[in-house]
């Protein structure tokens, strides 16, 4: 369906609906919804036209005078035809979107399978090189070079070894490749460990999901921590400044607007309180990664927390958010809306999955995909830029939920990325632009998400408080 490709070229919103294979541009979905709506309306108009015709009980007697009945009868006949035309056309549009989504899903699955095979072969090659080259300096250095290469690239700093062209990282094809590569890391490990491919298939992402991106991240953490990297520690949180007046967010635009920007030393969490003291409701906004260094510092929103969160372990940023929510007075039964950018989105998903709070809606902007299952009934809006490589760092999306709407957009489809800006498509400001486009859309699923947010938070003024978390030095091991 080239309409979808055209839409992507123009940087339009592309929407995937959870629980279905529907993938379509926002324009296409709006068209199908309008046609379905016209179908329903045509039935209603038909009934009304017939009722108007039947009002004049004298029509049968006025053979020679003016009579509206024949025209009303013909209008009803055409309305009957209209309702069928609209229904058929809308159904064909939805079917096209389903077929496109199915084809895209199959292609994605094939890419993952081949990526996994390639990863396993690479792992086997490394293993063979280690076994046969054990006596040589190259054989001894190879695994170390591989791990150093991975870590070096992940830090992304100037000391990280390989300098990557920023334009390359805003290429959607590269982002897709990175996603497949990250998803295949567990297969590299399986090949390296000498595990047969069939075992990897059975226990990996494509099978039972016991080993996958999270277990790879867990392995990376274990290896790195022995070298003093990615050391998590306890956190403490405190409110920053006095509470300020706030109005409830009306949609994705205002949710994204209120997420704290990732700035060192600044608050990472904003919590808003609405409703009454008997029936309070809350909005929690979580910022993105502040510190990209692999050595953990006092900043809990760092690379350590990113990898820890992907490993589905207790990240410092997650603990800080939970502590801030508890300190703010959010009770387990209070309805909560959570929004986050980047790492904040990953944490937002974890907060929703955490049974301690009654999360009703989650909006994530540029968050790495994760296997964390958001509970059923929680309205989930996932916003991803197809040219944002950070969204690929969690591997392929494997969580399907009826309540999840994924909106994708290529930010730099029609213009060149700005020079000198690292990962421009990942920038919170770009996600804020996309969120405004989402709010401007009449698409039903996007409207439903907005309705959920406004339904939870109401329209009365509330209070906003900023919170800052700090990582404390690791506790000494007990004797």
């Amino acid at each position, binding site marked *: 369906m080239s309409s979808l490709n055209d839409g992507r070229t*123009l940087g339009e919103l592309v929407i995937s609906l959870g629980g279905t294979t529907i993938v379509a541009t926002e324009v296409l979905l709006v068209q199908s919804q309008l046609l379905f709506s*016209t179908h329903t309306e045509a039935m209603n108009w038909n009934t009304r036209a017939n009722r108007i015709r039947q009002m004049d009980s*004298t029509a049968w007697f006025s053979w020679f005078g*003016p*009579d*509206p009945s024949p*025209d*009303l009868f013909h*209008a009803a006949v055409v309305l009957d035809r209209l309702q069928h035309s609209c229904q058929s*056309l809308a159904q064909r549009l939805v079917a096209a979107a389903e077929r496109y989504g199915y084809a895209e899903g199959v292609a994605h699955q094939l890419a993952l399978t081949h990526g996994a095979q390639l990863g396993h072969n690479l792992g086997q090659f490394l293993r063979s090189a280690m076994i046969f080259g054990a006596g040589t300096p190259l054989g001894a250095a190879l695994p170390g070079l591989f791990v150093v290469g991975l870590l070096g690239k992940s830090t992304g700093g100037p000391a990280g070894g390989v300098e990557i062209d920023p334009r390359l990282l805003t290429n959607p094809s590269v982002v897709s490749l990175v996603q497949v590569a990250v998803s295949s890391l567990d297969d590299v490990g399986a090949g390296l460990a000498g595990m047969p491919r069939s075992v990897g298939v059975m226990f990996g992402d494509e099978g039972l999901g016991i080993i996958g991106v999270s277990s790879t991240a867990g392995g990376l953490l274990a290896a790195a921590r022995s070298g003093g990297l990615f050391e998590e520690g306890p956190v403490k949180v405190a409110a920053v400044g006095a509470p300020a007046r706030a109005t409830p967010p009306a949609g994705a635009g205002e949710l994204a607007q209120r997420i704290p920007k990732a700035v060192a030393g600044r608050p990472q969490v904003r919590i808003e309180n609405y409703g009454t003291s008997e029936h309070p409701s809350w909005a929690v906004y979580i910022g993105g990664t502040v510190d990209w260094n692999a050595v953990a510092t006092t900043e809990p929103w760092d690379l350590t927390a990113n990898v820890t969160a992907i490993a589905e372990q207790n990240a410092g940023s997650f603990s800080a958010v939970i502590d801030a929510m508890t300190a703010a007075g959010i009770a387990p039964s209070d309805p909560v809306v959570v929004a986050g950018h980047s790492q904040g989105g990953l944490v937002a998903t974890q907060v929703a999955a955490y049974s301690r709070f009654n999360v009703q809606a989650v909006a994530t902007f540029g968050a790495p995909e994760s296997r964390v299952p958001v509970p059923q009934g929680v309205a989930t809006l996932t916003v991803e830029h197809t040219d944002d490589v950070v969204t690929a760092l969690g591997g392929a999306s494997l969580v399907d939920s009826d309540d999840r709407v994924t909106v994708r957009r290529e930010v730099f489809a029609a213009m060149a990325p700005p020079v000198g800006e690292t990962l421009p498509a990942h920038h919170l400001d770009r996600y804020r632009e996309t969120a405004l486009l989402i709010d401007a859309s009449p698409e039903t699923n996007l409207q439903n998400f907005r309705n959920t947010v406004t339904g939870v938070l109401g329209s009365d003024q509330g209070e906003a408080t900023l919170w800052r978390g700090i990582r404390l030095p690791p506790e000494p091991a007990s004797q």
Partner: protein
Amino acid sequence: MDGVEVLPYGQDRAERLAMLRTQRNLLLTLCAEITAMRRRLADLDPSESWTSQSQRAYLLCVTDVVEQVDLVLHYLNEALHTVRMQIYDAEILCRA
């Protein structure tokens, strides 16, 4: 005459005039709603970015839908015109 002239089919002129006015108002509301939907349907044309054969076929279908709506509006306007003429006649007869 008691001011109420009973027509051959058991309805007095005032009742008939009220019925015709109700019929006219309902038709006006119906026409307005369908016209509003027609406007939205006419805005569906995404031809600037749609080029493939299947998309052109889709556009033809949308055009057909809009034509059907136009036909419905034509019949309803004709019916409205007739009802207005009936109201005019009924008002003259009521005044006479």
